[in-house]
């Protein structure tokens, strides 16, 4: 009964209802679409960072993070491997690496780089290595002389596939180690900085080059994609691993490894909420005003209803119900439009026209907007909850109208 009355009241002035509905729809729609786009950018930034050899969890020597040299290595990776194989969920992957700073040089140039010794069989899929080969081929297992470098590095050294590149670093015996490697292939990465920073050799080659025995500097673990933002689950997994692992190992999640990015992402969350509130406030003025008009022009009617014995709380309920109907229709249409927009852009937005700008922020070239349940809920909760709240004012106003003042009202 109440619902029907309110429904009819809403449509008494279709033009007014139409305008305020448009406002609500645009509000909900843009909140969702803008939110989805920002999420997409954030995910792109994050997955870019995780793909650049960070992974979800790393197991390292406790001192390695502050002092990344070969001295601080895990000497018995076999025991770590046992623990990881037993305790990681089935859909997780891991690989050992040696990662140290060094210098690459040839006759033309010399640059500071990061030498990464990898297990060719396991590394692909774990990081960007193997994702996008520009020239030549990747490392074969057991290749002691091959090296894979970024395309940008190759260009800056004015060299080509098959030529030699000399790597220089300090080995485990504190001596300067230097060895020539043959360029087997080049990779392309999202960012030019990545292409210039990392060079890949096999783990075996790295171990003998650095005289590190069977040691490795880190085990990198990649969990299924959807766990990236689930920080609690991540911390739990890390804790479980830490319990099982032998002494002298540190378990670090990406939150520990990339504290700057974590801070940025959490600011991002509060920024999104702020954005929702701002759009809502702009909408709320219109909503309150419209409901206020709708109530005031019906002063006589409310007075009459009261004279007939309707309780004030019923009147308040009716007005709030009208407001709810408006919000519900607006939200439904806004959500549909929002999802449609995201669907239409599901191929991703190519950011390469802003390549240097997005590289500056660490965003990848392709941004795929998506809606998370959290965003969907917070958009709807903000509009619905606060919407009803601001409608309380006109509703209470309507409830207070007395029959006498209403009848004298023209």
């Amino acid at each position, binding site marked *: 009964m109440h619902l029907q009355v309110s429904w009819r009241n809403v449509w008494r002035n279709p033009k007014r209802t139409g305008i305020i509905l448009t406002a609500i729809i645009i509000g909900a729609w843009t909140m969702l679409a803008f939110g989805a786009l920002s999420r997409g950018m954030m995910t792109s930034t994050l997955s870019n960072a995780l793909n650049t050899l960070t992974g979800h969890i790393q197991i390292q020597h406790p001192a390695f993070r502050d002092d990344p040299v070969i001295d601080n290595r895990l000497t018995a990776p076999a025991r770590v491997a046992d623990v990881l194989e037993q305790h990681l969920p089935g859909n997780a992957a891991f690989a050992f690496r040696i990662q140290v700073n060094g210098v690459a040089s040839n006759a033309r140039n010399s640059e*500071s780089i990061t030498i990464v010794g990898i297990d060719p069989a396991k590394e692909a899929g774990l990081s960007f290595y193997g994702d996008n080969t520009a020239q030549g081929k990747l490392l074969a297992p057991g290749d002691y002389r091959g090296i894979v470098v970024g395309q940008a590095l190759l260009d800056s050294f004015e060299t080509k596939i098959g030529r030699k590149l000399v790597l220089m670093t300090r080995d485990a015996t504190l001596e300067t180690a230097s060895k020539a490697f043959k360029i087997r292939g080049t990779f392309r990465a999202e960012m030019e900085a990545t292409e210039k920073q990392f060079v890949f050799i096999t783990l075996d080659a790295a171990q003998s080059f650095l005289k590190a025995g069977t040691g490795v500097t880190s085990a990198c673990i990649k969990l299924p994609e959807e766990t990236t933002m689930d920080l609690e689950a991540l911390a739990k997994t890390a804790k479980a691993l830490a319990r099982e692992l032998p002494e002298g190992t540190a378990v670090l999640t990406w939150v520990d490894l990339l504290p700057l990015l974590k801070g940025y992402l959490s600011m991002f969350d509060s920024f999104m909420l702020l954005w929702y509130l*701002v759009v809502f406030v702009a909408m709320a003025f219109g909503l309150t005003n419209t409901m206020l008009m709708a109530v005031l022009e019906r002063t006589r009617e409310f007075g009459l209803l009261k004279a007939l014995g309707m309780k004030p709380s019923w009147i308040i309920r009716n007005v709030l119900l009208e407001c709810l109907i408006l919000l519900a229709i607006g939200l439904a249409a806004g959500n549909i439009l929002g999802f449609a927009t995201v669907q239409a852009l599901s191929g991703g937005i190519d950011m390469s026209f802003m390549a240097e700008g997005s590289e500056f922020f660490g965003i990848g070239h392709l941004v795929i907007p998506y809606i998370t349940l959290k965003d969907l809920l917070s958009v709807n909760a903000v509009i619905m909850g606060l919407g009803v709240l601001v409608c309380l004012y006109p509703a209470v106003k309507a409830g207070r109208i007395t029959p006498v003042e209403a009848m004298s009202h023209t």
Partner: protein
Amino acid sequence: MELLMAWRNVWRNPRRTILTILAIAFACILLVFMLSLQIGMYEVMINTAVKTRTGHMQVLADGYNQDHKIRKVISDPEAVARILDDTPHITGYTFRANGFALLSSDQRTYGGLITGVDPVSEPRISNIKSIIRKGRFLSPSDTNSAVIGSLLAKRLKIDLGDELVVLGSARDGAIAATVLTVAGIFSSGMDDYDRSAIQIPLAHFQEVFAMEGTVHEAVITCDSLWNVGSAQTAISKAVAGLEQKRRLTCLSWDELTPGLVQSIQMDLGGGLIFYGILLIMVAFSIMNTFLMAVFERTREFGTLMAIGARPGRLTTMLVYESAFLTLCGIGLGIGAGCLLTLWAQHAGIPMGDAEGMLRQYGIPGLIRPKLTLATALAGPAVVFLITMLTALYPAVKVHRIIPVDAMRAA
């Protein structure tokens, strides 16, 4: 006459009027504040980039900016200096030379970027002296002293007075080697820079790297950002005429750091979308007020027309009404917005968790908006335009009113 009537009409329904004014004021406050914030941030970002690295302009050998090869030199810096002395708007210049080298302390070895700087003129161009955290900057009598980045010092495990062995390749392809003593440690806040940079006196650099009196860059500052363009044109023309081994070019700060400019454009673009959505929301919110103000007065307009008011006069009156509303809102908005911005400018806005990340872009821990005439008025001007456009529709609609029908309307 219309003015007076309009003013009285505006206040016939004070509640509605105040809500509408508040909606307009809200939009203005937000626009003033956000625009000032963005401009303030950009200015800081540009200033940091200009002061720590690029200067306003640089004269370089053609192609040096794309690829920092040690052989791409300015062979006769004296000639460039003579040109710069004669160019108006230039407040100072200094010469630098850069080279890549392997840096070894007793315990650690890392690659680093060595810059040879002029101990006298460098502090006038860059902020290096003010970011020295420990020790002192180079003095003219220094030969093999160095100031190094704080993170590099930490990695190399060295402190003031310690020795550092440098091994690199010189301009002629020979080995460049020297031993440096740490005179100072600096921290710019940008991790990449602090992790790799080291500065030594230019004369010593030229000796070690076989530069034979040549340099890589002439770093120039201008009296203001606005004069960079004209000074650049003048210098470009002059240096192109020089008889040097390599063609010289003059690049401005935005050409030297394209990532910075694009990232600003990206941020500004995002901001504009945000403002656009906000304005649409506000427009719909107040459209209802304007429409209702006309519809509920159909009878009144009918009467006015019946006693001889021309539709044109009614339109004028309605436009005045909306103008009153809008101007009140904008006035209030600009006032409150400026107050809020000035307060934030004075107190600074802490960025919490995101601080570390923002520091990498040269933004300090506290963000300060910067109120200028443009940021205070640009947003509200757009709001004025949009609200007046919104108000035009009902004002024109008045023309369609037929007195007889209107007076019969309920």
